[in-house]
């Protein structure tokens, strides 16, 4: 920490170190994947949305058949898009979702169209939660959420095996308790 603050600030923010290495700096993926069962959990969640949408569209078509002769085309398109999302999103998310917990920080990668890498240092974590919804329980999964003092800073690791999640929460709680300070 000290070596940084004593550095001359003139070049800071001008990309100097990157230029010095001549290569690209990038975020490496976190070490662990989530549990593969997460794919089915997410599929189930999407189905909960997709089935009513598809049903609704076709019902609407049936009622407006007299007015809109090409309504079934729209309905078909909606159905295909929704099915594609249900099939693709969970697999894509699974491919992206990664997590890692070190002694210093929690590091995750999530998303599909939009990827998010999140880092929170252990010293700033205020709370560790372990949540299991009914669907998650069905698949033996669990979510771990770490919260910092920032209203925008909660990091959630979804789709962990629930035994693993329990151990992780224990580990996180131990580590964060060992660090003094009010974490703001």
């Amino acid at each position, binding site marked *: 920490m000290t070596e940084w*603050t004593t550095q001359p600030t003139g070049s800071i*923010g001008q990309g100097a170190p990157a230029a010095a290495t001549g290569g690209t700096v990038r*975020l490496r993926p976190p070490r662990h994947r989530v549990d593969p069962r997460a794919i089915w959990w997410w599929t189930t969640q999407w189905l909960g949305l997709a089935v009513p949408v598809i049903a609704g569209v076709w019902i609407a078509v049936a009622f407006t058949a007299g007015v809109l002769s090409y309504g079934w085309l729209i309905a078909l398109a909606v159905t295909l898009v929704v099915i594609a999302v249900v099939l693709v999103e969970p697999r894509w998310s699974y491919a992206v979702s990664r997590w890692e917990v070190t002694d210093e920080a929690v590091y995750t990668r999530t998303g599909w169209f939009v990827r998010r890498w999140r880092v929170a240092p252990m010293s700033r974590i205020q709370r560790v939660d372990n949540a299991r919804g009914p669907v998650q329980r069905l698949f033996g999964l669990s979510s771990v959420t770490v919260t*910092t*003092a920032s209203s925008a800073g909660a990091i959630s690791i979804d789709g962990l095996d629930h035994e693993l999640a329990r151990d992780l929460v224990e580990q996180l709680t131990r580590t964060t308790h060992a660090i003094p300070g009010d974490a703001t």
Partner: protein
Amino acid sequence: MTERIDLPSAPAAPDEPAATDRWERLDRRTLAVNAVYATGVAIAAGTGAVTRGGIQLWLVLLGAVVLIGGWVALDLLRWMKTRYRITGERFELHTGLLFRTRRSIPTERIRSVDAIANPVQRVFGVTVVKIGTGEKAGKDDEIKLDVVARQTGDALRGTLLRRARQVQSAPAASQEAGQAPPDEPAGDAENALARIDWAWIRYAPLTLSSVLGIGVVFGVVYKPLELLGLNPFQMGLVREAIVEFEAHPLWVSISVLAGAALVLGVLGSLVLFVEAWWRFRLTHENTEGTETFRVRRGLLTTRSLTLERRRLRGVEVAEPMLLRWGGGARTYAVATGMSEENKSIERTDTLLPPTPRAVSDRVAAEVLGSDVPDVTGSEAAGSEATGAGASPTSAVRLESHPRAALRRRMVWSLAPIVAFAAVLAGLGGVFDWFPGWAWWAALALLPVAAPFARDAYRNLGHGLTERYLVTRSGTGVRRTVALQRSGVLGWTVRQSLLQRRAGLATVTATTAAGHGAYHVRDVGIEAGLVFAERAVPDLLTPFLERPDHLEDRHAH
């Protein structure tokens, strides 16, 4: 978390030993204050009822008596049921008629004590005291003493903040408090950083308040008249004016109306400015080692905001477009424990009225501490004659973002217009009643939107100083935020598919203060990562990949 300790039964307070820990009640004058409120409402409602007719006078009077009596009785109950005390380590507050709430807050959690008094309360010499903890409290969680005597309010402020400081012993005090330059002599000292300069009123019409101003003037004039049963729109003069309007071509009427609105808006904004910033001063106080900033202002409603330096995480300089064209800026504190529900009209974290940009930067520098080295040499800060250091919000030469960010802004602002025009053109092709020129009109928006996109791109920037990271973005409102590097609680890097293809990312610092997250938008991915890594040493480093592993800066 606000701790709510539910005691098994209300402990009879007075027989508790320590005399300093006595339970206190609110000021009795709350009854008088509420009687005035009730009378006001009664008069307003009564006048309306009488002038509209149909209700007998004695009924109206009876209603008024019941209303006032009931109101005051309720307040009496509230007064009887509310008690507070300060013990060695806690502030305790018991409230509630049916649902008793007992709150016990460690004094070390108390971050701000604010006194607000409206005109009625000022006449009676009382004030509302709001106590802020470091939490994002919901509306019901606000800790409020409504009302106490003005002197009691001042005393409470002193006691609570001093205790907060004492309990919070050295190790927990944040790093920056220790670093703060001892530019004040030990002991009590007060030092004005800014006072109202009435020349600043020229910025009032350039702020949102000019829009509100119309409403204010309208409300002040129209509402009371309406309550008296005189609708201005039915009065002769206005009627004639309306008739006059209808006699002229539409564009004349519209421009006259617009002109009138403009005049009203300007007048209203001046009125609002005077009301809000009367006797404004921003002071820096050093009481027994507790450094606080205090904002005091207001003509009818007096506001007093106290902010401890250790809560301060930075400063936000916001320049709404009109204000920016006029060379002005608004200045806000980025601090922990400010409640999120900033009402749109008046933010509680306001440090200054709309001021010239230079004043904004000078105050930012003084508030943030003047230990920031002038990074860029002479250009920005050399002109400051005050002797204070350069402000992070102005002195840093901000790094601009890649051209791809400009393309992105162009696409995002122009594509919707093109799409809209296409839809209009399609409609024009299908239906013959649809005006065929409509899509040309839509396309005419393109040359208007493009400069905005360009401006948005030019305003993007980020930089670092020794203790602050600085980020800027926005065109409608350009915001420059200087955030303490030690106040960063984590990073989020966001990249959509489109951003990935353009080599951009949005890098977000999360913090406990202000909005909770501050973005460096559409920065080149590599520059963004390096920026984040340097801003908070060691946090991001283990997760970065460099092709050249020889360069290990953390090898000693």
